């Protein structure tokens, strides 16, 4: 894997975007905004933030959504998918053509692309699949084979099943109620799909528990995973420090990294999934932390990736696990806020 052109990335812009369409797509909404400067800079895996509620809104935090697609029409449009979770997303769903929104993007680290043609498995939970289709296009341009594995609670919550079937070499669908594809979760089918597709690399986006299981399973076969995480964000640009999770750096040191600027795409094995929602005792700057020797840091790196049963605090376990979505929400909405989102 290589980061490709990631280093040469043009920065995000804050612009006024004009709503072109808002439409229902099964259980979700898809909004298309005319925002040429955002579209021109977009690379798959990146997201936008939107201010919601108008100038006198009581909702102060921006909402983050991964970009589903960009198109050249009207100078450049950006499309994203969302579910109505609260007042903020309800307000968005009520927007109409020609309404103007304050939009910032594209934000975050995109999916890195393989240097050589590879067999790529794209795994999405719920509308976490939204950013995977633009990625699929880029991968195919590079001669990669693209397989899809999409799942959700029910058939109407599998975003893009038809597109996946039409454009993927293979497309495997799972639903928890069995209303579409096979009954179960994406992780139930992962083993089988990896073997049949001879997968070289996995790209995944969806709820944290799904990403954790995919990383663990892929690790057994030594398959790299690029996982787009969803953490609650307030700003999306790297200043608020709310969206952090423990990530092991190339120096072997765990840092509380911001999913908005250091992510949302992380290498799966670098995220300490079992410690998400906690401050690991050996994290950079944790209570009692002190600089260690290089050797100690390296030993720690080895521990960090293999030791999976590190305890979570009671508090983090009290976080909501919404049934029917396979985890905390249904993916895609990177800034899913538990309050008024």
């Amino acid at each position: 894997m290589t980061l490709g052109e990631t280093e040469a990335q043009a920065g995000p812009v804050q612009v006024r975007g004009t709503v072109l369409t808002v439409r229902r797509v099964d259980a979700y909404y898809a909004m298309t905004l005319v925002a040429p400067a955002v579209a021109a800079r977009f690379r798959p895996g990146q997201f936008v933030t939107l201010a919601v509620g108008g100038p006198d809104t009581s909702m102060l935090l921006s909402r983050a959504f991964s970009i589903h697609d960009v198109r050249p029409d009207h100078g450049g449009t950006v499309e994203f998918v969302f579910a109505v979770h609260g007042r903020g997303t309800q307000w968005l769903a009520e927007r109409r053509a020609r309404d103007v929104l304050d939009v910032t993007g594209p934000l975050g680290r995109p999916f890195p692309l393989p240097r050589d043609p590879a067999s790529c498995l794209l795994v999405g939970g719920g509308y976490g699949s939204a950013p995977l289709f633009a990625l699929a296009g880029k991968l195919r341009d590079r001669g990669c084979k693209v397989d899809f594995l999409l799942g959700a609670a029910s058939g109407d919550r599998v975003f893009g099943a038809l597109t996946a079937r039409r454009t993927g070499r293979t497309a495997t669908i799972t639903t928890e109620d069995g209303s579409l594809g096979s009954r179960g979760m994406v992780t139930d089918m992962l083993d089988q799909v990896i073997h049949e597709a001879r997968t070289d690399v996995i790209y995944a986006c969806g709820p944290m528990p799904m990403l954790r299981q995919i990383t663990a399973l892929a690790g057994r076969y030594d398959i790299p995973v690029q996982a787009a995480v969803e953490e609650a964000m307030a700003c999306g640009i790297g200043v608020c420090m709310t969206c952090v999770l423990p990530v092991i750096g190339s120096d072997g040191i765990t840092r509380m990294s911001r999913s908005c600027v250091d992510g949302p795409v992380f290498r799966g094995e670098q995220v300490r999934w079992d410690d998400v929602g906690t401050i690991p005792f050996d994290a950079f700057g944790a209570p009692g932390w002190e600089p260690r020797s290089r050797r100690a840091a390296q030993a720690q790196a080895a521990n960090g990736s293999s030791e999976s049963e590190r305890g979570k605090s009671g508090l983090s376990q009290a976080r909501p696990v919404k049934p029917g979505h396979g985890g905390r929400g249904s993916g895609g909405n990177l800034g899913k806020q538990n309050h008024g989102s």
Partner: protein
Amino acid sequence: MAVDLRAKLGHIELPNPIMTASGCAGAGRELAQFMDVSKIGAIVTKSVMLGPRSGRPTPRMAETPSGMLNSIGLQGPGIDAFLQRDLPWLLSRGARAVVSIAGGTVAEFADLAGRLSDAAGVTAIEVNISCPNVEHRGQVFACDPDASAAVIEAVRSRARYDIPVFAKLSPDVTDIVAIAKSCVKAGADGLSMINTLLGMVIDTDTMRPHLAGLTGGLSGPAIRPIAVRCIWQVREALPNVPIIGMGGVRTGLNALELILAGASMVSVGTTIFHDPSACMRILRELEEELTTRGVDRLADVVGLAHESRVATGRPVSPHAAVRRK
């Protein structure tokens, strides 16, 4: 004619009164993607501590009506990284750096002031004695006049003489004027108010506190009237002490309200989270509001609300509209 927006931060003159609020703009780098950081009065950095700090577990944030709770817990890489990376960057962009410092002990605050004084280019120090996201309420120095004074005295004695020291106060006290007086007596060149208020949200689905850290600091327009009240009270008691006002400023009009209450400078915080270039917009709006009101000098309206009880329009109170030449 353009309004004279120059503002005084202690003895230092700033081109205009709009600044970022500590903790809402990192060290300026992220915002520079959306605005020219040298165009606003100053960048007030996220509080810097001596060592690296991981902060509190997630969830760290909850949206509340016209506000938000945060429970970050002062995450940051520490003073070494700040001096090596962030301060030089700010200076290279032509920005004025007001460095917020936080510590667990008086000695830590003093050490930080010393380190910053050795580095060139620090415009002012804002002493964060009021972060609510610490393990013990007893660590919130700004809740106690003596503890506040001890920190400010130590910082003032270690900071270079020409770097103004501002004490950042908490509104979560019975008598903010007593704390303010104590800080000024200990050598503070000015006061910043207000920090966030301690708040809490319970998730009615999980029936548990929403924040991993249980409590968090409330910010946003929800607290603006409290900021106005605190600034008013302190200005009334200490008319000659410069105040950096902050608390729920979303528009130029909001900034003007804090200025009328007595703030010479205004910091913009939570609004940045949904509008990364908010500081520039608020600066533009403030200038428009002043023009509309026929005001040609910002300094003329600082604390002006205090004399509105007098109908003559002429400053009769000694602490009204102090003119600075």
